[in-house]
């Protein structure tokens, strides 16, 4: 806790602290976010159970069952048009449960692979959900980051949310949960922020800068087959860590700018460029090919 936080915490008396739930002290001001335009990809995800690739833009969700060659646009409810889509998450162990989230939208859930959706916002302080992560192993557990508030957890598939932590000092742009070993609890978070990658165990017992990348990170992804292997897309190229974010090395990027990443169960890495172009690497970002080509 910083001095300012401490001062605020001690200035608040019981009732006010209770409102802040669990002594989660201050909210930090939300950084202004640019709204992605048109076809710009905002998120990628891979559903291992159905071997489906998912891709979002600010206003649409697409799926591909042939490694990105053909895409089908999925129907979305009116609620998805109240903001812009920033995240898509697949429930652990599949069964077609998907989640969508974004500022203005809150959280939406589908139980049938994206054909029907319903809102899942009970317990959230608003709809400004900027990041969403599904637990790597527990099907009902999800984490939503609400700007100016913090990270909320649901353990019943979005049925109810509870404030867990205010998050790292720098706003989260994207959040993933990983089952990398070594956690005190059940896994780890990696958060893409404007200052690098932030890492915490999922007991929320301390965010630390992971590996001192020292530059804005737009997307982060880990390899489910080798969870210590983490990728980070920055404004200045793509980085790989093979030790859970302790050190990073620059690897080949398929495009000048990468805005979203996903890794399949077999370790294939997908990267999206702002214009929607999608690339695939099966050798840990040594070489790339256009996806679906």
């Amino acid at each position, binding site marked *: 806790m910083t001095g300012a936080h401490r001062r605020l915490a001690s200035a608040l008396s019981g009732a006010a602290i209770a409102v802040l739930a669990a002594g989660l002290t201050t909210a930090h001001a939300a950084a202004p976010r640019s709204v992605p335009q048109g076809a710009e990809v905002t998120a990628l995800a891979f559903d291992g159970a159905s071997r489906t690739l998912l891709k979002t833009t600010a206003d649409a969700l697409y799926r591909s069952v042939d490694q990105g060659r053909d895409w089908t646009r999925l129907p979305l409810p009116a609620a998805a048009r109240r903001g812009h889509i920033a995240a898509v998450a697949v429930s652990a162990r599949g069964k077609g449960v998907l989640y969508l989230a974004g500022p203005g939208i809150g959280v939406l859930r589908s139980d049938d692979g994206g054909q029907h959706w319903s809102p899942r916002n009970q317990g959230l302080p608003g709809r400004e959900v900027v990041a969403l992560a599904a637990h790597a192993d527990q099907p009902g557990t999800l984490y939503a980051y609400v700007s100016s508030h913090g990270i909320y957890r649901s353990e019943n598939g979005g049925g109810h949310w509870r404030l867990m932590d205010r998050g790292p000092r720098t706003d989260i742009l994207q959040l993933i949960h990983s089952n990398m070993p070594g956690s*005190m609890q059940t896994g780890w978070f990696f958060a893409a922020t404007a200052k690098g990658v932030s890492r915490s165990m999922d*007991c*929320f*017992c*301390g965010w*630390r800068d992971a590996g001192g990348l020292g530059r804005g990170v737009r997307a982060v992804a880990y390899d489910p087959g080798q969870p210590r292997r983490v990728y980070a897309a920055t404004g200045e190229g793509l980085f790989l860590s093979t030790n*859970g974010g302790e050190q990073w090395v620059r690897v080949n990027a398929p495009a000048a700018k990468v805005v979203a990443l996903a890794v399949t169960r077999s370790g294939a890495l997908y990267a999206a460029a702002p214009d929607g172009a999608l690339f695939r690497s099966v050798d840990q970002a040594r070489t790339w090919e256009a996806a679906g080509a």
Partner: protein
Amino acid sequence: MRNVRTFSALALLGLATTAHGGESVSANARHLDTGHRVYRAQCGACHGAQGEGAARWERPDGQGELPPPPHDSRGHTWKHGDGMLYRIVRDGWRDPFNKTERLTMPAFGPTLAPRDIRAVIDYLKTLWTPAQRRFQREESRRMPYPPEAR
């Protein structure tokens, strides 16, 4: 003076249960006194006499080890359920990214009785805010003390 403090801490903890609990209140007061005693003898040297933690506890030190964190309201001890706290104290812990292999948080299982481990953890709860205690109580539902400590 200390009894007054202990009593209000008990009330906050919801340990001072019933009206006819004169006896259970004093049993709980004894429990927390035990916890405080264990804390002073076994924990304070590293975590600070008041649970304030090491000075620069949020970053690894010169040896690449995370220093002892605070146990008061500024730390994150209150984020863990009872079962997790019990395991940490019994089995010890080191951050997996520490540059050394040793257990920086020693295992007290070999030297402290289960009820003493529980007592020291319950004592730590008196250092938290009411909201933190509520949060931790909620987490403890999924992660209660193990049978050996009940």
